[in-house]
Each structure stands twice: as structure tokens, then as C-alpha cells.
């Protein structure tokens, strides 16, 4: 579904992605973790073209990125992206947020999009909030609307860029529960997160990145209980200590 082969990227002189080779199968859930600045956000932002790669091969849903034949706008409709800072449209209600792209990009009938939108919002536990503006919602609620906004596009892949890092601790679980639900329905997912509970519960693989390179991959069980490299051990001891 997603295949990186020898992907490199630089920000100026900074080598942010170093020779990444990694593939994600359909219906697989992959958690990406690592210290800040390790390139994990950049990695998943490349998948939907929010960042462009310098060299190497990146194939998503059978289409090679950077190819002339690849229509990025079309490919993006198949990829949901959840941001750390939610990025809901502040001038639109929750329902308008989740129906905007289905109506204007997918060209679905408004009435149809709205009933699907209501259903999706109810599914993420926001049946009471159809007409609320983002500013009237808590962080956890906003992030759930953001997830519903992606799901309403019926994507093949969902990418999450630290979806719970901007949330107050008591709101993290409500967002993770929704993500677990999405994973259990068989969505192909790549999730940048340090939430190990989530990784253990639904991830098939954990990818550990440091300084722009993939240092270690393994099942959550292997990775958390028996990390293979010094760098992953050092990282885990830091996030586990508190």
C-alpha cells in the first residue's frame, strides 16, 4: 500500500530522511516513534505529498509520487491525514467540516454527504455537536471531528501525525479509542505517536526512527520489551521513566 525505497530528503543542508526503506501492507497498522526531530512527521507527510522527496522511490496505492502520471490531488482523496493541531476549519460547524471535502472534492450530493457526516460524527461520539463550531469544542472533541472529517472521504489509508500530543491528558483516551475503532475496521494506518498502549493494542509493527533513519522495526511486543539497539533503549527508558 505504501512503499519507501531508498528515500532521501534534505531541508537545506539538513539530511532529514536518510535512505528510508519501509513498506506498509493493506490493513496494516504501523506506529512510528522516535525522539523529536528524528524525521517521523516528515516521513508520513511525504506520503500525501505535504513534503516532497529528493530521491528514492515512494509508491502509494500503486502510484509513484513525483511521477508525471500521478495526480496528487486525486491520490490525496484516498489518504486521510490527521494533524497534531487538528486544523479544523474554524468558520465551519462540525458537520460542515466533515462534509466540505465530500461535497466539493468527492462531488457527493449534499443531503447524502450530510447524512453520512452525521453518522460519522455520531460514531466518534459527537452526536450532540453537529452544529458546534471548533472553538466551542474541547481539544479531544476537535480531534475526533478531524478524524471523522478524514473518514467521511472513505480513504484507503489514514495517516496520524502525533494526534494526541496537543491534548490534555484526560482527553487522550477518547481520541485513542476512536483510532482503535478505525484500526479494528481494517484501515491501513501509519501513526506517529508515543502512546505505547495504543501501539500494543492495534499495531502490527513499530518503526523506531532516529536522526532521519529507521533504526529498528519490530512487533510492539518485541520493541517495547526487548529493544535491539542502544538508541531505542535510551529512547524507551526516557519515555517510560515518568
Amino acid at each position, binding site marked *: 500500500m505504501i512503499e519507501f525505497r531508498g528515500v532521501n530528503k534534505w531541508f537545506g543542508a539538513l539530511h532529514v530522511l536518510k535512505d528510508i526503506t519501509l513498506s506498509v501492507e493493506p490493513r496494516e497498522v504501523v506506529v512510528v516513534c522516535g525522539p523529536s526531530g528524528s524525521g517521523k512527521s516528515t516521513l508520513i507527510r511525504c506520503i*500525501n*505529498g*505535504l513534503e516532497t522527496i529528493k530521491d528514492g522511490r515512494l509508491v502509494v496505492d500503486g502510484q509513484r509520487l513525483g511521477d508525471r502520471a500521478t495526480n496528487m*490531488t*486525486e491520490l*490525496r*482523496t484516498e*489518504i*486521510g*491525514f490527521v*494533524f497534531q*493541531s*487538528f*486544523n*479544523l*476549519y*474554524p*468558520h465551519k460547524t462540525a458537520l460542515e467540516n466533515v462534509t*466540505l*471535502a465530500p461535497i*466539493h*472534492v468527492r462531488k457527493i450530493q449534499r443531503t447524502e454527504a450530510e447524512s453520512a457526516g452525521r453518522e460519522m460524527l455520531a460514531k466518534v461520539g459527537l452526536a450532540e455537536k453537529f452544529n458546534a*463550531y*471548533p*472553538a*466551542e469544542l474541547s*481539544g479531544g472533541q*476537535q480531534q475526533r471531528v478531524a478524524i471523522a*472529517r*478524514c473518514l467521511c*472521504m472513505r480513504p484507503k489509508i489514514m495517516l496520524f501525525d502525533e494526534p494526541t500530543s*496537543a491534548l490534555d491528558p484526560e482527553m487522550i483516551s477518547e481520541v485513542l479509542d476512536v483510532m482503535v475503532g478505525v484500526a479494528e475496521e481494517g484501515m491501513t494506518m501509519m501513526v506517529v505517536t508515543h502512546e505505547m498502549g495504543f501501539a500494543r493494542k492495534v499495531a502490527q509493527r513499530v518503526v523506531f526512527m532516529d536522526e532521519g533513519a529507521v533504526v529498528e522495526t519490530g512487533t510492539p511486543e518485541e520493541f517495547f520489551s526487548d529493544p535491539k539497539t542502544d538508541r531505542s533503549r535510551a529512547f524507551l527508558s526516557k519515555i517510560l521513566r515518568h
Partner: protein
Amino acid sequence: MLENFSFRTIIEYLPLLGEGFVATLWLSIVSFAGALAVGIILCAMNLQHSQVLKLPAKMYIDAIRATPLLAQLYFLYFGLPRLGMVLPELFVGILALSLNSGAYIAEIIRAGILSISRGQVEAGVASGMTYAQRMRLVILPQAIRVTIPPLLGQAIVLVKDSALLSLISVSELTRAGQLLASDRFMPAEGFITTAACYLLLYYGLKSLAVLSARWLGVRPIGSRI
């Protein structure tokens, strides 16, 4: 001092002043509409990546902001006839105000668009919207809200700037005050009355600004981050 102040003369000139008031009002409205058009075009040019459109827009905006309106007015008033375009004073005046205010409006709109966070653009991009869809559905509706109050501020500036048109003998408010002042040698009566009329226009626009702020404030905007 007040015993010399002739309210009678003011009342006598009221029809002329009224005409001037109405003239200032409508020529300001027309100029502002023109300025909006100029501003939107300039801003669209300025936001392009290609220097072909960006550079001329930038140079134009700098040239307008760097020179006095009076110089621009005279440039058009004396310059256009030399190019064989003899236009009525009123038209030249409206043109000058539109071209001048347009440069400022372009910057106001640009600031409004740039004030919308990068995340909003990315959310649109990630959901597969085209540039045009992002602008129409996501960026502009938000930018307009932040742009309206400074635009009304610019409208106030434009109304006051329109007084300069009296120098190319457009009959508007200041021109009416000048006529009163020079006919009767009563500068105080002439210009204080004119000033009072501008104050009236100012409060009109200001209450519009307050109303618009209240209307825009009704719908919550600005997420927590």
C-alpha cells in the same frame, strides 16, 4: 470669537455644502469600489510564485506608498492629457483615489490571507482540494473576516483623501467650503463646517465598522490553537 461666527452664512451656503457632501459621499463610494477591484487584482498578482506578475505588483505598491497622493493626483491630472487622454476632472480624481487606495487595500487583503495559519492550507491540501477550492472554501471566508475592519479603516482614509480632489476643481465637500471661504472671506465658517461634515462621514463609517465587528463576532472563529 463666537460673536463673529456667522451661522447665517453657513445656512445660506447649506445647499452648496449639501451638494458637496453628497458628491464626496458618492465619489468616495465609487473610488472605494474601484480601489477594491485594484486591490484584489494586485493582491492576486502579489501572491503568485512567478515573478512575472509578482514583481510589477510589488513595484506598483511601493511606488504608490512611497509618493504623496497629491503628486499622484497631479501626475494623472497633468500627465494624462499629454498622452492625449483628456478626461473630466471628476474621472481623474476617482481614478487617482482608486489607484492609490488600491495599493493599500492589496496589502490589507494580503495580510488577511497570510494571517490564516499554514495548517488551514494543509488541511485543504490533504483532503484533495485544488488551489481554487482551498481559496474559495477555506482561506477567503476566513480572511474576509479579519480584513473587513482594516478595510473600513482604509475607507475612512479614502474619504479624507478625497478632499485633495478640490485642488483639481472637483466640486466636492472641501471645494464647497473653499467657495464659502473665498466668496465671503470667512475661512472659519467654510472649513469648520466642512470638517464637521467629514466628522459625520467618519462616524457613519465607524458605526459600520462596529456593526460589522459585532456581526463577525457572532459566529465563533479561531480554534483553540
